[in-house]
């Protein structure tokens, strides 16, 4: 198992380096001159009404400050070195360290992602089990149709509809509120998790349907157990194994979905931060948030691989 972990960890390292290189190079592929862009932002904020003509000396100073007068590999090395020491530069807009801004927003996104994952798993398992127990009936058709409908639905539109119905019309839940409060978390979590629950439901159903052909299930039926008891007491545990792995992979779609859901519900978080940074062209913040999210995603996938190897020992010897 240790060798497997080391092997997979070593494979993850080049991916992480590649991600960091892609994010670093972003600044160098921008249309226009990043130095001019940063100087214009600086000057505009400090004295909005003053003349923003930039002198050659200011240009060279900024170029030197950003390290853009160095060879590319030196710049990348410094970027990695600083990133590993928790320095991702300063936001153009707020001048606050990017790392601090990200750390302030992590808890909100984490809580939302976990809540969304909970909704996705709970709803997906229930729908999948109902479909499997009632397979080839109208209930099966209806639950699978609901699954197709949910993946075809834009999650931001679903969020707006939830707001409209439950917050504004029925007034059962608040439209906005303290982001860590449970009541404020319900609608965003459902909006985030509903779409992913479709994949869980379909996988749960097909996994259960496969497992019911096993001998031990035939034995349970022969003993006279109801179909419900056969599924829930005997088939479910083994059918859960592939579902557990997809749940781990769902974390990535939670991170991606949080980007939009945080905007819909005006919640703070890394996703909202990334969106605002892109729209405002705040490049240090764009780099920081995207690098952070990608690194978390790679680590999450690595942990999912490990849990899969732990659950199914055959994987380790592949």
């Amino acid at each position, binding site marked *: 198992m240790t060798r497997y972990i080391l092997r997979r960890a070593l494979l993850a390292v080049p991916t992480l380096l590649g991600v960091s290189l892609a994010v670093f190079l972003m600044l160098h592929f921008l249309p226009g001159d990043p130095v001019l862009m940063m100087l214009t932002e600086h000057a505009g904020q400090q004295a909005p009404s003053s003349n923003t003509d930039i002198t050659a000396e200011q240009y060279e100073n900024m170029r030197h400050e950003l390290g853009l007068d160095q060879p590319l590999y030196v710049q990348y090395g410094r970027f990695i070195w600083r990133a590993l020491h928790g320095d991702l530069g300063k936001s153009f807009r707020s001048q606050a360290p990017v790392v601090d801004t990200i750390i302030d927003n992590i808890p909100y996104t984490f809580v939302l992602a976990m809540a969304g994952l909970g909704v996705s798993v709970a709803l997906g398992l229930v729908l999948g089990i109902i479909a499997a127990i009632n397979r080839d009936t109208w209930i099966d058709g209806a639950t699978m149709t609901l699954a197709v409908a949910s993946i075809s639905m834009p999650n931001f539109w679903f969020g707006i*509809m939830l707001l409209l119905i439950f917050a504004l019309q029925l007034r059962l839940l608040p439209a906005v509120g303290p982001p860590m409060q449970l009541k404020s978390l319900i609608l965003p979590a459902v909006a985030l998790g509903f779409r992913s629950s479709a994949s869980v439901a379909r996988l749960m159903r097909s996994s259960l349907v496969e497992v019911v052909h096993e001998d031990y299930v035939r034995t349970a039926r022969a003993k006279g157990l109801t179909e419900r008891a056969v599924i829930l007491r005997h088939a479910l545990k083994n059918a859960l194994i592939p579902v557990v792995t997809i749940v781990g992979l769902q974390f990535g779609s939670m991170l991606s979905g949080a980007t939009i859901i945080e905007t819909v519900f005006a919640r703070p978080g890394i996703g909202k931060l990334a969106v605002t940074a892109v*729209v405002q062209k705040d490049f240090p913040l764009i780099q920081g948030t995207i690098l952070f999210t990608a690194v978390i995603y*790679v680590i999450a996938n690595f942990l999912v691989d490990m849990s899969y190897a732990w659950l199914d020992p055959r994987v380790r010897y592949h």
Partner: protein
Amino acid sequence: MSMAVKPTAAPITAMEGQSAKQGASMTLLALRSLARKPIPMLGLAVLVITILLVILAPVMTPYDPAKMSPTEALQGPSARHLLGTDGFGRDQLTRILYGGRLSLQVGLISVGIGLWAGLVVGSVAGYFGGWADEAIGRLIDIMMAFPGILLAMTIVAVLGISIPNLMIAVGVSSIPAFTRLIRGGVLSARENDYVLAARAIGCSDLAIIRRHLIPNIMAPILVYATLRIATAILASASLNFLGMGAKPPTPEWGLMLSESRSFIRTAWWLATFPGLAIMATVISINVLGDGLRDAFDPWMKGK
């Protein structure tokens, strides 16, 4: 006297008819089986109707999608404005029809970009293997390290916010999936005897890939491309919702939903109908794609 056999107009015998039927391509058989399935056919019908409606938008509605009419602002659905009007008095149905043009364009063009790039990169990786495959594999891993919409957002951040850049962003973010699919198909297809035969008669590698490998793996690729159009439409709507594509007053479904938030308390129709339009289009493509996949899947045929 010539003993040449004259061509006759005699009807095809049962035996000739049988071999003609057996000779029918897999594609035709798969499409025939698809035509017998009601739900994919319903999806196809809805899609065709949607496409016709958006193409014929200027004929379907007398209103200009950008023309403001302040006196008619925020009117609910009525006989005059079937889906109501927005904050500037613009007819919502008109804007949805014109917005559909943009969504379908983005869907088709971005999938075209992903498919074309995936064909090139995936077939090189699958056919030649070795260091090319390794390098491409690492690049794909890096692209797939950006979850979901974040890769498209990164590209928009670099290129700038505009509709063409959005198409490129959505297209590029679909390259990894196409590359992996095509690479896998080429990897298994290159072991076939017809490839060996083609090499033996002196076909170049490029000719083998273009003329022999790709046509034989196109069926699952086209199925995936169909499903991917649905994903692209959703991704494009999401990016437009976030303000990373079309700018007002361009009618676009995601942008319309973003603008509807300001009026959510007073004008429920502004938030409802563009979303239903997206959903109807995407569902129809998804069920059609699912039907195509089932029709081409030989394992499913064995059931």
